[in-house]
């Protein structure tokens, strides 16, 4: 349900400063209240502003359906990392600014009445960077989706791996992808939604591996930093390099979806990809718990058609 905004004249000198936001794409001054009603999409040029994790959850899920999991996961400082600032100070500052404990929130909810597990990243928390907490949350969300056999939706907004946790951040690429790979093999859908930006180690792990990859328009999506690409390699970068439409044109994104259509798209996709699942009470009995060892030995049998349903008990 796209909301059409009335055009309005700029009245530069009559409003307090915090009521207006300038669109970085078209320089239009946008009235904050209207911008929020329009899901933070510029009414003039369609530029998608970034969303906080709570707002994103609210936009996508059925009202009052979200139950957050693991809200208390808190990063440590395994390297004793100090650059111009100490890492724990950066985390504390980000926590104070965003009200979040780290750059991802995950939980259970429903979309169009269907149960899902959802994990949402927030760029305003240290650039949405993935350290141990984000990696753990993504992995736990995938394991929960496998356990319940309900679709996993991950909304990415991240510059990549968090440098301040060194190779432990790099190892989160393996941790998250190992978990989503088990989902894939078990036939539980992963829908990856890439918002601005989805880059570096987050794009090079679970975000690129959705069964369906969606992207918001004109989001920055890429592996190497554009400055790195431009600086290291001679020659100009192609038009629209590392933007959603570029990824779409090269076959790495299924659909570029305007924010006002995103919830409806997810409702349709979830309904098409996942069978009707009994409601929340199902997870305390009806569905067998995931047993990794028996599951793995069943993998080899999955190529044989008649045993295709074997792992569903």
């Amino acid at each position, binding site marked *: 349900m796209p909301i059409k905004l009335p055009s309005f004249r700029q009245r530069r000198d009559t409003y307090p400063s915090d009521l207006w936001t300038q669109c970085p794409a078209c320089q239009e001054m946008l009235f904050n209240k209207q911008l929020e009603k329009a899901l933070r999409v510029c009414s003039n040029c369609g530029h998608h502003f970034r969303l906080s994790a709570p707002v994103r959850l609210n936009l996508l899920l059925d009202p009052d359906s979200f139950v*957050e999991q693991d809200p208390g996961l808190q990063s440590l400082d395994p390297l004793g990392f100090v650059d111009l600032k100490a890492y724990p100070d950066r985390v504390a500052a980000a926590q104070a600014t965003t009200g979040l404990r780290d750059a991802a929130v995950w939980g259970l909810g429903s979309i169009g009445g269907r149960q899902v597990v959802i994990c949402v990243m927030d760029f305003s928390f240290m650039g949405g960077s993935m350290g141990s907490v984000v990696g753990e949350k993504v992995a736990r969300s995938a394991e929960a989706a496998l356990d319940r056999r309900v679709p996993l939706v991950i909304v990415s907004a991240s510059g990549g791996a968090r440098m301040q946790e060194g190779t432990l951040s790099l190892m989160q690429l393996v941790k998250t992808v190992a978990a989503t790979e088990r989902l894939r093999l078990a036939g539980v859908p992963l829908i990856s939604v890439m918002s601005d930006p989805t880059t570096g180690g987050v794009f090079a792990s679970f975000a690129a591996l959705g069964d369906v990859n969606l992207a918001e328009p004109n989001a920055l999506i890429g592996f*190497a930093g554009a400055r790195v690409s431009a600086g290291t390699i001679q020659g100009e970068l192609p038009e629209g390099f590392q933007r959603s439409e570029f990824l779409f044109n090269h076959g790495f994104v299924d659909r570029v979806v305007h924010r006002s259509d995103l919830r409806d798209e997810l409702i349709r996709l979830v309904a098409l990809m996942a069978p009707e699942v009994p409601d929340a009470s199902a997870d305390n009995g009806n569905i067998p718990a995931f047993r990794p060892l028996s599951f793995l030995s069943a993998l080899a049998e999955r190529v044989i058609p008649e045993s295709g349903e074997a792992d569903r008990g």
Partner: protein
Amino acid sequence: MVDRLIGRTGRRGSSATDLPREPESPADPTAAVWARVQLARNLHRPRTLELLALIAADFVELHGDRFFGDDPAIVAGLARIDGRRVVVVGQQKGAETDENIRRNFGMPHPEGYRKAMRVMELGERLGLPIVTFVDVPGAHPGADSEERGIAEAIARSIALMTRLRTPIVTVITGEGGSGGALAIAVGDVVLALENAVYSVISPEGCASILWRTPDQAPAAALAMRMTAADQLQLGVVDEVIPEPHNGAHTDHPATAAMVKAAVLRHLDALERRPLDELVEARYRRYRALGAFTTIDVEPAAIPERPGFTDRLRNLLGGATRAATGTGPNPARSYDEPPAREEV
């Protein structure tokens, strides 16, 4: 309740924040680490082909990813080491300029990783263990790489390695550069040569972002604890293979002999394990890596609609512009391209 997980260092019994420094380090730890980074990057260190020439009785290289082309920055093939048949995948630079250019300075394109995946899957089908040799500054960062899906290739290769039903031994022989290294470095056992380094981003890249100048690369190298000894402490690496006294580049045969002995010892142990158990243990190995604690908190309330929080953030983030006195091009707007957290 607070739990503390730092890699799998429990069995080594130390907190990562009080890692012992190298005993032979000079007084300046930054200079010592930087010297080690230079050593890891030394062009005359033995890489995949040099090592194979010394440790494999036979090696048949396989070429091409069957989709696009053959990437000379990654070599892959079938080998026989000490009578044992294995699949080998590794990165390759050239010691001389011409060869180095031909191999694109050891920076793989997507087709390199897709070739690696093809050959590793072949190993799984044939029941052969996989040995990988890692030495890469990073995946190739150009437009062609992005067009052909470098991130997807890396992600898929990592995913494949987490589930391959055959033993995998990985050796970091030089520079373990971020995702470009990790794409072929997921193993049951991860070994590192003594002067190898492993990092989430190059020290130059890290310094450019966090110190705002690449000149601080040595400080970034120290802060990231990227030496083999540090990686062992973090649990990212399982064992450090000693190098000849003056470094691997000074004595290829001695280095190769030590690599060979370590790889064979681990393959022996891994091949005795049932495959289900092996793959589950590999999953658990990576599942346990990370450092966090759990604090008792109430879940945060999710606001009904965008509003106050976003406005507050915009204010704090300098995003909202006063309607008066804002130029057409604010120097730093909320939605400018992000400072990159990783390369």
